[in-house]
């Protein structure tokens, strides 16, 4: 019976936490711009490219920013691990199996 957990799961756990944090940031961005700027009276609205500023930042810029953040997250922070090999080489500091 093997002891310890698969080292690849640690990578995966870390990535799951990163994904969750990104989702929370995404929510905060979306909420803060929408109700922070959009909660004012319509008379005080400012407009960017024709859109009310709250919508422009919350939905349009938010879409672009978070697509780029996803790209940065997987490009620089996600690791490529092999899926199929039953006995992957433990990396330095890997588990004792």
């Amino acid at each position: 019976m093997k002891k310890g957990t698969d080292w690849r799961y640690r990578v995966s756990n870390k990535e799951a936490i990163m994904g969750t944090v990104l989702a929370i940031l995404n929510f905060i961005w979306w909420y803060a711009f929408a109700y922070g700027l959009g909660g004012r009276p319509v008379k005080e609205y400012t407009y960017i490219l024709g859109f009310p500023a709250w919508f422009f930042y919350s939905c349009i810029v938010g879409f672009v920013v978070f697509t780029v953040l996803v790209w940065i997250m997987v490009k620089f922070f996600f690791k490529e691990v092999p899926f199929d090999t039953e006995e992957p080489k433990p990396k330095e500091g890997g588990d004792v199996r």
Partner: protein
Amino acid sequence: MNWDVILPLAFFLILVFLVGIYTSRHIKSGPSFLQDYFLAGRELGGFVLAMTMVATYGSASSFIGGPGAAYQLGLGWVLLAMAQLVTGYFTLAVLGKKFAIVARKINAVTLIDFLKARYESKWVVILSALSIVIFLFSAMAAQWVGGGRLIESFTGLSYTTALFIFSGSVLVYVIAGGFRAVVITDAIQGVVMVIGTVIILAGTIIAGGGIENIMGELRAENPNLITPFGSDQSLTPLYVSSFWILVGVGVVGLPQISVRAMSYRNAKAMHRAMIIGTFVVGFIMLGMHLAGVFGRVILPGIDVPDKVMPLLALEVLPGWLAGIVLAAPLAAVMSTVDSVLLLVSSAIIKDVYINYIKPDAEEQFVKKLSFGITAVVGLSVFAMAIHPPDLLIWLNLFAFGGLEAAFIWPIIMGLYWKRGNANGAIASILVGVGSYMYLHLNYPNLWGMHTVVMPIVLSFFAYIVGSFTKGDRPQTNTF
């Protein structure tokens, strides 16, 4: 009939049909048949994975119902729709490589295979299979009706003929080609959805005389249309935020989505899919719902929200371009039903028949059975869709939220909490589905949030409490 519109639609249907048939030639025989038929041999690359996740998730409501609501309520509804951006990356990130690796280790082909290996409980399997078959069957029938109605409204054919054309084209390629045909056609359908969004958005902005002009007219009509609160001020921040659960993070619990998280080839495919998926889902949701809002300036006074998109496309675009745009909702419906059809059939064959009725069934027989059951399920949905029974329509009300409340914790906690056990999973499924149905019928939108929120909270506690009762924990270190 408007042939300009019908020709691109017909071309699209034929293209999907031919591609679906062509991919079915790749189906392998032998021991890998089930893996191949229900999971395409875990060989999906990044682009196809992204497209099949977006297309399976995006249904008629993204193209018809949603933009119709945006037309009535204004930018507030676009804000709500943008809660879906998170589906592009969250499911893959949270289930992650662990889910894909575990699935390989235990040879899982379906979501229930995963739950079975994790909880080692007959009741978890039976309850899950029941929820999937009942809820997804009715959800599928509802989409099927939608597909028939769409073709009916564009072409003027009778509903039954339209339904026949729609089901015929979907059924043949799903039965013959399995998961591979489903995902390859999903990729085409996803591309059609993106192209349709670009065209209708551009057409609407041009017809409305530019964004600035459109916003000015909206503000003049009713200033609330350009606030986040909706034309009638009905969209409270809490209510809109609760959609982050229903159509955002909760989507992890939908079996037709989570099963895709075990189908990709390698880590690189998953990484690419997260980037592409986020972009595509964000683009479609933003574009289609904005077009709905803008449409109000061009075609004021439409009372039936579902007619907004078709009428708008016909108004602002030349016929053949309108045909391409109208192919998008059809693509969305097809890509949803084909995935769900295969999932229901896999639940019957793999999860019930092979697990409990005949574990030692021969390959050849399993193969015939797979084609056969998929055909039977498909044909019975078709039959149901001709005159949808009330029960089915009633069940469909619970399908989306009920499945999320049932599966989200058994999947996520099963992956990340070692103490979670079968009692917890059973409690979570029962409490999730039960409380969702109860609240939906008796206290819809409790405390100003979408109904789905409380059942997801309750099923979480049910899982925790259940897991503290005596029960076996997984004995292996697979999880």
